[in-house]
């Protein structure tokens, strides 16, 4: 095992551990009050006009079937095409889409390299047949992904500096992040363009990594590329860029979370746990003493008496 093996493992462990920790932290927050925002795409037959089951009289007696395909119909164009940005912020769309789609292509490229690396280790011949087509696809993916991502990152960088709104809220990290992403795209692009053995090298690299075997000597740009990619894995989980997966929660756990609290239903237990917690808000009208919980505070007339005391 080489230093490179060690670094790859370390960065992947940090990446996965930090992502899991963030996801667990979000999932462990208590049940929250309903705060859905229409249109909710799983509303069968009503999503097109933004309707909900509340459009029915006695809705609690009716079927609450969810249209999960409808959710995919929103998520897929949103993720692949950044539909929201297209509709609400057209001037940002190309650069943001380029930056994101370039990344998707490189992720696809990485998956393909990994697959080919494993197949190579398994002894399959990558130089003939269908597998050879996949090998040649690698270079195309790296070039298109790298170029698109680089273009997007450069334009975004300029916009962060010049756009009236974006520059007002730009922090140092925005520029560093874009430089970092730009470096990933640029080094991928240069490596693919300048190295005649690009496909062999990258597949060999992955094969060496997954088999803990020997890694072929790479051009300098290849090493730089590995360094910036690994650094990104370590850095990303601590930034707002985790929205790539927390978006799942903002959509499914907030925007589209419309589960009614039915008597005897599954939510009651979670609510009971939430309302039994002690409250320490200090405003006098709350009447909290650190021992009283939500149920104590909302029932009865404690609040009114407190108001009188204040007056």
């Amino acid at each position: 095992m080489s230093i490179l093996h060690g670094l790859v493992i370390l960065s992947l462990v940090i990446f996965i551990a930090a992502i899991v920790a963030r996801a667990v932290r979000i999932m462990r927050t208590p049940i929250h009050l309903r705060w859905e925002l229409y249109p909710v795409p799983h509303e069968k037959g009503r999503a097109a006009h933004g309707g909900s089951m509340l459009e029915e009289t006695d809705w609690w007696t009716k079927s609450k079937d969810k249209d999960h395909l409808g959710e995919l119909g929103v998520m897929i164009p949103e993720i692949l095409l950044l539909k929201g940005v297209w509709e609400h912020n057209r001037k940002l769309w190309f650069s943001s889409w380029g930056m994101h789609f370039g990344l998707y292509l490189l992720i696809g490229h990485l998956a393909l390299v990994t697959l080919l690396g494993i197949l190579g280790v398994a002894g399959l011949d990558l130089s003939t047949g269908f597998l050879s087509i996949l090998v040649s696809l690698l270079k195309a993916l790296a070039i298109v992904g790298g170029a698109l991502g680089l273009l997007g990152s450069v334009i975004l960088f300029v916009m962060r500096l010049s756009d009236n709104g974006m520059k007002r809220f730009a922090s140092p990290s925005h520029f560093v992040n874009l430089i970092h992403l730009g470096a990933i795209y640029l080094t991928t692009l240069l490596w693919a363009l300048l190295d005649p053995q690009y496909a062999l090298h990258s597949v060999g690299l992955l094969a060496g990594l997954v088999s803990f075997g020997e890694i072929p000597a790479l051009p300098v740009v290849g090493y730089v590329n590995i360094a910036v990619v690994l650094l990104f894995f370590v850095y990303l989980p601590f930034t707002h860029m985790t929205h790539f997966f927390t978006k799942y929660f903002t959509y499914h756990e907030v925007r589209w979370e419309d589960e009614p609290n039915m008597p005897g239903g599954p939510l009651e237990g979670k609510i009971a746990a939430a309302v039994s917690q002690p409250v320490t808000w200090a405003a006098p009208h709350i009447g909290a003493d650190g021992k009283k919980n939500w149920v104590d505070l909302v029932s009865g007339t404690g609040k009114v008496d407190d108001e009188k005391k204040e007056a």
Partner: protein
Amino acid sequence: MGVVYCSCGPANVKEMSEPSEQLAHVELKDLPPLPPPYDNIEELPGFKKLKDETREEYEASLDDTLAASLKKPKSEEEEKEMVERFLSGLHKLFTKENNWTFLQPLLLSMEHCAKCQTCVEDCPIYEESGHNELYRPTYRSEILRRLYFKYVKNGNKWFNTFQQGGIELNWTLISRLFELSYRCTLCRRCAQSCPIGVDNGLITHELRKLFSQELGWSPEELHGKGTIQQMEVGSSTGMNKMVVMDNIEFIDDDMTDRVGFDVKTPWDVEGADVLLLENAGEFLAWPENHGCSSILLDAAGISWTMSSELAGYDGVNYGLFYDDVQLARVATRHFEIAKKLGVKKIVMGECGHETKALGVIADRVGIGNIPRESILTLMRDIVFSGKIKFNPEKNDFPVTLHDPCNIVRNLGIVQPQRDILNYLAPRFREMTPHGVRNYCCGGGSGFAIMSKNNFLDWRNHISSRRKFRQILEAFQDEDMSPETKKYVCAPCSNCKGSIRDMLDFYGAKEKSGIYYGGLVELIVNAMEDAREPILDWDMM
């Protein structure tokens, strides 16, 4: 300290903490012009300046108006103490014990904003203020976000500042931030357009909660005269049981005279199917709304009742706008009353925030819920039940529909009101945009009942401007003279209040013949058997 009197907003987030006479200012000439005949600034009502005495007494260094009206502290010690208390509230806002109600959505909105500004053009306040930077939806969110990363979020302080940018916490900042949390109607239009799912409306809501629940700061209209009065006296209008019953009796008699058949509101009927819970403001400002609901429920043969219990006759819940504990208290009271009466369901009247608060938000404040539904869906079923004969020709005038944010964007009740209007209002036309992409009337989040100082001027010039523009545009294919009466149907009490104020402010009735009212009035106006039309243009 210099006087800032350009028509502009703050240059950056840090200015929020820097003392100055006024952080932002709006010149009427910089607002996007309205269509004629409302395009001449000289002929429009002005924007009154805050009085010097008011500026002396209250913290008024944010912009041209005061909504929350915070008194100036007496000493620097008091300022420091408030800052400490704010900080303690900031921490509580991110604990599961104190804020289980919204912790998850808040954390998600705090930590994942890309600061891409995709949401901003969808905010009617920002747009119609001539893009004043103070009202950018992301501005107040950014302040809370930076405070969170600096004072609450674990991790290396340097790294957090590198990620989010810095901010200085001081009295200037918190006193302005309190006011600024009352420059957003919580309409959540911006949240719809955020690709990541960050919700600037929610962030405003959480800020208001922090101020109310920790420091006891909130506008008098929402708290003292709002939730407190509702629970002490029975209604935020100040009406006690006797007064409300008297009023309703008067409304019943008046309606009986007008429609020619008996109208009588049933009180405290145990075991009725439906408890009708309306915004009590209707009984004073728009009595026909209750009268018509009463007529419709009777005509459909529904077993219903009202409650004379404390707060049982007022469905408002201003807690929704500023304080989760108050929200839960009012909602719990409503649930208890319904349970005691043994009704099968609560039907919530034409009030957007009531329907959102009781129908959805309060769904999880307690155990053993009573079913609730909006009167809009019930009315649709009644209208199409065949039990009542209608003559849509009675509504032969141009009608447009205002979609209350709380009804559409927050509850997904979009179609029932349209089904009714398509059937009973032959000259119905939509606003653009409408449905879940509607614009707020400008009175959301309590603004409709807030008019102290010159806040009404701010509201009418800025937060209601987009709605006024939409209303004018909806009728553009009609004769815009006052002779052709036009009706804005607003199935929400708060929205009606705000539309009333804007139409008065711009003189739209006199200049363009634009009137407004609820939905049930249009339904009853079209009833074949009613002796007189319910809509009396001279009285509107």
